[in-house]
């Protein structure tokens, strides 16, 4: 494979100190710049016929927060009871819950001109497609808040023998997954084709271990690994796993098969945007051991997905919110006034004007790397530098056909063994139509080969052609000849895609501090407070914060 960034030589960027970070980052940028120049000088780039653009979250907003650009003084003030900042899944879930419990005096603020945050989606003439989150798995049965929501929006259509019946149009259509390995597409992503008996035995051993861990409970009779994670057992026996990396744990378990380790790296990249050496063992196991959902009409762990990915769930969460949502408005600072009310300074991005919102209480549903910039005088005892976010690159590729290779045909999730990306999903999987050959493939590349800050910086400076230079060789490897079938590639860069559960984050002091309300009128909700970025966590983060608000008003939150 030569689809790797030019700087991906072994040993580059290792153990960066702060000073050398700047140096290396400079080098990376210069390198990319030079690379761009060289390509300009040599216009015979192989992918010059591919059209499209690079997009991402509002760059101006980031700029304002990061570089503290001067803004006009606020010229108006509004007073409300509850303010929610950020309309990602956490914020939407909080808003939905407040409304459901009869608390109507609230506003939901969002800087983008759309709701959804990392679960945002796009659409072109061929299909809708995800730009971030694209699936959930069926819910754990005891998670009634979640099953309640899923029933409310028609994902669960009823119950049979007290097991939920899932809407068959949302359960991932077969065939679900395939892996290009040893020259052939095999069914399923767990490596199998061409593995030695030894490797196969290790894969089996790992899954046997997971089956055990799925069932185990701590001394407090709670599951060792649960969703939301804060429901997990406090038993130190399991929590200690948060103090070592997943890699160390696997080593201790004598799981050394390169195929198995590739697979586990793939899974961690897929869920956390980082490899097994970066995430804690507790988190690595959680990915496998926390999902126990049972359905009347699907296997446990069954996937639920939509053409627009979790954009579909976003719309359902937002369905009843109407006037409460204010898009295109960013919060750029949060303070307290003398009465102890929260004063949020708001910038209307389109109009270029600012105003203040005075709120009795606030749910801050923005990530902590943003919050760090919002709070000037409010101390939370959080070491923000210890929160790590994985950058991601997403490409939605419109093709007019898919050159076929040996083995299993197109699935929902398509992965190639030992490549930098985590493969692509077929956005049109859930269509019942007999389609022509046109489809949109959503390709996911976690930028995890370097320290996030370096990778993020490099990602921001890369040109469209450079992204194609990274992506296309891998796609050509998966489907020789695909270049000619591509009509359009829409790129999307998430600089701070998702929190990743580094060692000692999930059960460490920092996360606890970040979750703590301030003055009993400022509450927090975001997946980075879980340490694991999945829909379910965001959903519960929102409800937890909303319940904290409701408690102020003496409402007994009902489930």
């Amino acid at each position, binding site marked *: 494979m030569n689809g790797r960034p030019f700087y991906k030589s072994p040993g580059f960027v290792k153990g960066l100190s702060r000073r050398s970070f700047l140096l290396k980052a400079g080098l990376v940028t210069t390198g990319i710049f030079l690379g761009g120049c060289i390509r300009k000088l040599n216009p015979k780039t192989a992918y010059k016929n591919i059209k499209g653009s690079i997009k991402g979250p509002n760059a101006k907003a980031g700029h304002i927060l990061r570089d503290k650009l001067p803004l006009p003084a606020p010229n108006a003030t509004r007073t409300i009871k509850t303010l929610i900042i950020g309309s990602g899944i956490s914020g939407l879930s909080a808003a939905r819950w407040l409304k459901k419990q009869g608390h109507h005096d609230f506003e939901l603020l969002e800087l983008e001109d759309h709701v959804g945050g990392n679960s945002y989606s796009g659409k072109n003439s061929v299909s809708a497609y995800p730009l971030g989150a694209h699936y959930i798995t069926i819910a754990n049965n005891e998670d009634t808040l979640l099953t309640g929501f899923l029933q409310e929006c028609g994902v669960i259509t009823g119950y049979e023998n007290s097991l939920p019946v899932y809407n*068959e149009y949302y359960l*991932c*259509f077969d065939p679900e997954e395939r892996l290009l390995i040893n020259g052939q597409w095999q069914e399923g992503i767990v490596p199998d084709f061409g593995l030695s008996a030894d490797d196969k035995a290790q894969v089996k051993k790992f899954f046997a271990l997971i089956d055990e861990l799925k069932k185990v409970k701590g001394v407090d009779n709670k599951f060792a690994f649960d969703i939301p994670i804060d429901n997990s057992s406090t038993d130190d026996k399991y929590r200690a796993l948060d103090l070592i990396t997943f890699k160390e744990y696997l080593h201790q378990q004598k799981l050394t098969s390169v195929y198995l380790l590739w697979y586990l790296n793939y899974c961690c990249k897929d869920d956390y945007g980082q490899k097994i050496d970066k995430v804690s063992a507790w988190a690595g196991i959680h990915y496998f051991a926390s999902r126990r959902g049972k359905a009347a*009409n699907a296997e446990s762990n069954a996937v639920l997905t939509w053409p627009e990915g979790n954009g579909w769930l976003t719309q359902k969460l937002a369905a009843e919110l109407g006037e409460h949502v204010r898009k295109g408005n960013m919060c750029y600072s949060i303070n307290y006034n003398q009465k102890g009310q929260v004063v949020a300074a708001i910038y209307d991005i389109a109009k270029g004007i600012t105003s203040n919102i005075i709120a009795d209480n606030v749910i801050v549903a923005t990530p902590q790397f943003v919050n760090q910039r919002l709070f000037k005088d409010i101390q939370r005892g959080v070491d923000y530098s210890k929160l790590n976010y994985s950058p991601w690159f997403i490409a939605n590729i419109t093709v007019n056909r898919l050159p076929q290779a040996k083995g299993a*045909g197109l699935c929902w999730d398509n992965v190639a063994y030992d490549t930098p990306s985590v493969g692509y999903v077929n956005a049109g999987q859930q269509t*019942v*139509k*007999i389609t*022509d050959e046109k489809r949109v493939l959503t390709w996911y590349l976690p930028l995890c080969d370097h320290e996030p800050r370096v990778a993020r910086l490099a990602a921001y400076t890369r040109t469209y052609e450079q992204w194609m230079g990274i992506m296309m060789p891998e796609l050509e490897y998966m489907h020789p000849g695909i270049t000619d079938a591509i009509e359009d590639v829409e790129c999307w860069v998430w600089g701070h895609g998702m929190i990743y559960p580094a060692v000692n984050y999930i059960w460490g002091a920092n996360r606890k501090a970040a979750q703590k309300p301030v003055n009993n009128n400022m509450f927090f909700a975001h997946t980075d407070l879980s340490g694991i970025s999945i829909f379910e966590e965001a959903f519960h983060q929102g409800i937890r914060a909303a319940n904290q608000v409701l408690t102020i008003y003496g409402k007994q939150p009902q489930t």
Partner: protein
Amino acid sequence: MNKKLHALLLISVFVVATCGLIYELIAGTLASYLLGDSVTQFSTIIGVYLFSMGIGSWVSKYFEKNIISWFIQLEILVGLVGGTSSTILFLVFESVASFRIILYSLVGITGILVGLEIPLLMRILKDRYEFKDLVSKVFTFDYIGALLASLVFPLLLIPYLGLVKTSYLVGILNVGVALIVCVSFKKEIKAAVYLQTSAVISVLALTVGFVYAGVITNFSESLTYADTIIYSKSTPYQRIILTKKGKVLRLFLNGNLQFSSDDEYRYHEALVHPGLQALPNAHNVLVMGGGDGLAVREILKYPNIQSVTLVDLDKGMTGLFKSNRMLLNLNKSSLLSPKVKVINADAFTWLRQDKKKFDFMVIDFPDPSNYSVGKLYTNSFYKLAKGVLAPGGIMVIQATSPYVAPKSFWTVDTTLRSVGLHTIPYHNYVPSFGEWGYIMATENPVYKKPAVFLPVMRFVTKESLNLMFYFPKDMAKVKTEVNKLNNQVLVKYFEDEWSSVL
């Protein structure tokens, strides 16, 4: 005049004659492939062709000066028109309305041009031979050429090259003659360079046509079909191929036989009548798939039927069966009936929108050989189908072979039952398919075997029905899973079962 030139001109006569006859044969063959009825086609084509040659001969007297140069231009033109004629005819065949006009015009033009050739050649040669020698030589070579053409065409050209390539090859020969004459008479003609260049360009153009002829009618494809391909088209959804051998037409979709005109009645009678005969009060019928209109033909045999809605994905299919004469003969113009409404839509999506109810439904999709089609055999689909079935109504599903693919067949049965339908499986023998299976499904167990069938029936009768309903041990029911969107077991069974026989 030297010996070489002498021989050359006589060879030209020979080549010109061969080519001329081959064009005639190509036109005749193509017309009978595409339009059927070879006697009529051949005799009208030959008539028009000979008559046009007469016109050509008559016109030849108006050519006075520069005969050699005219002859060269003529050869180039014959080569181009004749060489591309079959391509043009294949391409315009879809817009059938104008097909005959184009066919006969092309035959006429080629005829006139070919008719000009021999008179002009004779005039070139007239000063070089004595008259009696001239007549005897030219006609001898002309007739030998004709003999060669009539042997080479069916024995070598059609089997190895196919029609389109043959045309291009013959065109190249014609232009080749022009080129040789041009070079040999360089000194006697004006604008030799110009003529030579156009001849070279034409040869190149025809060679390109020859090389890419495969795109027009896929020759390699024609090798995989036993019979002659008379129509082929790639629509966005499938490749449609129609073949003909003797009187028998066969339709293939993506290489899979859909029907053979000599025994399709067995299939379509079995598909429609056991159900529809049992519903004397049926008015509204829905057919999904079956864009060939053959099931509709059977349905229209009942006067009580007021409307038939045919939902087929592919406009290319229904269009073909609404316009091609041979196919209209076969489906009795069923798709043109005022009772029939053709909707080109995806059946699954179409069913998901609110629909009126139907008394009888025919679900006649291609076999579940891939995941796309497999969706049309799922419990989700049958739930929707059940939703549009009128009270007391019957739906019937083509369900592959219970003999070759028992698991597949009984999966359809299990899946229908899983959505609360009562099923009546049955089967019959269709020679070109083998033992074939169908399943009727109703909301309540109401089905009663009809006591009589329409007298026009060739296969289905009260007696044959008893046999159809009986499943011998080698096709007996097996236990299977329900086919669902999220497991697609049917596609897997189907692949397993058929791969062991194919």
